[in-house]
């Protein structure tokens, strides 16, 4: 087993992807930033002693402390505190954990939905393909944020008020996921159309392999590259969509604040001089989305040989 791991690692080290990664400063910087953000968000308890959700940590005495490098700043609150005296850095990291979870879950949901629809549509063709593809066309005419708002509105109508705060995060994942799937469906259908005419698919059919196994064992691994590329860029879009919805007040409830909620809450203090309460979550969101996008661009250039010079 150990030998296997070593040889796999050697193969990775030898691959073109690894080399292109080593040669690209953009890819190295953006992925380093992302690793730091992911680590700090998911292991936030190890990074900071503060827990903004613990009522005992609230201290109104420390409220509105500016960042530590300013005149009135305190060393223990690096990025200052908010109106309840909670540490901004800890609040941002806890918030980014929610944002990342929602973003990943939403993109996974739309990836699974879009790829299965696109793959089957491309493979079977005919009327089924036409219906699926026209559906994506229709949905692409509606801006995705509007779609998400619509889903959220319907969910509010169906789910009772008491249940709503509990269910909010799942509704949000569903709303963002359902508004992003057409991209995946289109890309995977196009790639399937190319793959299904290759001889290895014919060979499997001649052997007698069932359609389901041909699609998911043979074709799926071969179309994953473009899907992963748009998945990465889609992740940034999903995180921004979550922030937008939360900023508008239809996302996660204020009791479990995400980056979008933090920006909205901080927005109220912007004109009274407490700029840091909205500025830091916002800049954090920009860095996060920007890094994901840069990594996605690099992936697209490397994994798509047609774009190579």
């Amino acid at each position, binding site marked *: 087993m150990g030998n296997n791991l070593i040889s796999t690692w050697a193969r990775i080290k030898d691959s073109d992807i690894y080399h292109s990664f080593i040669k690209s400063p953009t890819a190295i910087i953006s992925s380093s930033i992302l690793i730091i953000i992911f680590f700090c968000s998911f292991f936030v308890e190890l990074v900071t002693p503060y827990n903004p959700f613990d009522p005992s940590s609230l201290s109104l005495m420390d409220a509105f402390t500016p960042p530590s490098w300013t005149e009135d700043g305190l060393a223990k609150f690096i990025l200052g505190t908010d109106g309840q005296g909670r540490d901004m850095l800890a609040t941002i990291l806890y918030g980014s954990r929610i944002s990342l979870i929602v973003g990943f879950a939403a993109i996974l949901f739309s990836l699974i939905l879009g790829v299965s629809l696109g793959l089957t549509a491309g493979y079977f063709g005919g009327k089924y393909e036409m219906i699926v593809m026209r559906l994506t066309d229709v949905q692409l005419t509606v801006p995705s944020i509007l779609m998400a708002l619509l889903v959220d509105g319907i969910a509010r109508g169906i789910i009772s008020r008491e249940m709503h705060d509990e269910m909010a995060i799942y509704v949000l994942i569903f709303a963002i996921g359902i508004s992003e799937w057409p991209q995946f469906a289109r890309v995977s259908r196009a790639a399937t159309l190319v793959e299904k005419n290759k001889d*290895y698919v014919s060979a499997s059919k001649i052997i*007698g392999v069932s359609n389901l196994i041909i699609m998911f064992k*043979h074709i799926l691994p071969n179309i994953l590259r473009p899907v992963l590329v748009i998945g990465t860029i889609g992740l940034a879009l999903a995180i921004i969509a979550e922030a937008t919805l939360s900023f508008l007040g239809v996302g996660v409830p204020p009791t479990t604040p995400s980056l979008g909620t933090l920006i909205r809450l901080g927005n109220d203090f912007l004109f009274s001089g407490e700029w840091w309460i909205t500025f830091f979550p916002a800049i954090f969101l920009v860095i996060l989305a920007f890094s994901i996008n840069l990594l996605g661009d690099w992936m697209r250039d490397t994994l798509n040989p047609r774009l190579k010079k």
Partner: protein
Amino acid sequence: MSFLKISNLSVDYKMRKETVYAAKNINIEVNKGEILGLVGESGSGKSTIANAVINLIDEPGKISTGTIKLGDLDINKDTSKTINYRGKKIGLIFQDPQTSLNPILTIGEQLIETIQTHINISKEEAKKRSIDLLKEVGIKDAENRFDNYPHQFSGGMRQRVVISLALCCEPELLIADEPTTALDVSIQSQILDLIKKLTRERNLAVILITHDMGVIAETTNRVAVMKNGNLVEVGPTKEVLTKPKEIYTKSLVSSVPPTDKKISRFIIIEKENKTEKETNLKILNRWTKKKLTEQDLVQVKNLSKSFDDNFFTENSKNSVIAVNDVSFDIKEGESFGLVGESGSGKSTIAKMIVNLYKPSSGDVFFDNVCITKIKRNSEMMNFRKQIQMIFQDPYSSLNGRLKVKDIVSEPIKLHNPSISRIDLDNYISDLLESVELTQSSSERYPHEFSGGQRQRISIARALATQPRLLICDEPTSALDVSIQAQILNLLKDLQEQLNLTILFISHDLPVVRQMCDRIGVLKDGKLCEISNTEELFHKPQNEYTKELLHLMPKIESIYN
């Protein structure tokens, strides 16, 4: 003094891991009025030499040493001047006439543009000159066709236009890089005749790059044989082909399928002597060998297939008839060949026999059961395992995401789900042995293998279900000639030992002659003639067959 003199030329490509030498210390001379053939297998550096002459070597490749002299000019020294020679003194013909013409300009516009770039004459004069050129290369009604777009010409005509473009500034050197590879046999011979005629009339120096020894034998005066960037042998064509000095040239010549006789095996000359191959294949222990009977295994009856691209209405007027009322039988243990040019419906017939396409009308019987009418999947599975297929393109016929052992084990596990793991491993290793691959291959991925080795993996996969009928759809047309000889030998051995019935589909008549007992000739979806191989080659009945036989390039023509 020779016209083109390449001395001591080396071209190398600096890659990430190593430096690849595409050409090493090459010395070649070409005289006026002579055609020099440059022959070699893929990757041997034939095209690199041509690209070096016109200074079109792509990054990261570069000419590291050597000089190229055209007459008295050292064209390699001052690369800024090369652009003036390219097109003017040196004419070029590429492989694919589809892509070497600009589809959105008429051929007239392209000719005039090229002429005016190099020669300072008026548009009217350029037009007059272009029309004369088009006439010279054999385009009828040149005045009217002058304003046509490339897509309005057939493949052969388009290649003629490309030749006229290459000639329009009266070059003294013509480089033809596989000029007929993309064309059918009947058109190939016309283009080669044209090149020969132009060489004579215009006193050109011609470099003809090809992998086809038949073309070399029929067209060239002298030939240079290349391997791995090295020049193996140069000399008058007749001498090199009949009395090759180097081992490589000998093996190359012996792997070419002879067109005038049937041989039992290709002689493969290798430097080291291989140990004698075991005569009995291990997979035979698992094989229920069929006795050879005189009965028909496959009967194809009045098979037709039409394709229509209209989505809403079936059987519309736009349909294309790919196969039209074709009937033939194949006996158990026989090799049956289907021959035809591109678009003749060969592959469509194969796909109907393996049930990838449903025929529009007609039936296929296998072992006296009509397999085209079977509805139930479980019933079909029984036949799936008896009919297997090998494809043309060794690159797309294997799933690159699976290891070789998973590719080969898929059919075994599907048709015998209860097989134990140890038994499965043994079976896979027996199969790999029978196609002469090493045992360590099973843990590797397809991209680690060469084209010939991939084709062997394909054969191993096809044999895994112990089929009675093996359909080979152009199994060697993507391979080099020496690899082709090995694969054909392998197929012959397997057939002999396993009593396989083979349907062999090819456009290459010499190959079909070596492989098949009987041959059917297809043209535009119709079967022209079926007869025994030797009878067909000696006394063809049909006009089309006669023409095909007459036109195929013959390596033996060198003896006459």
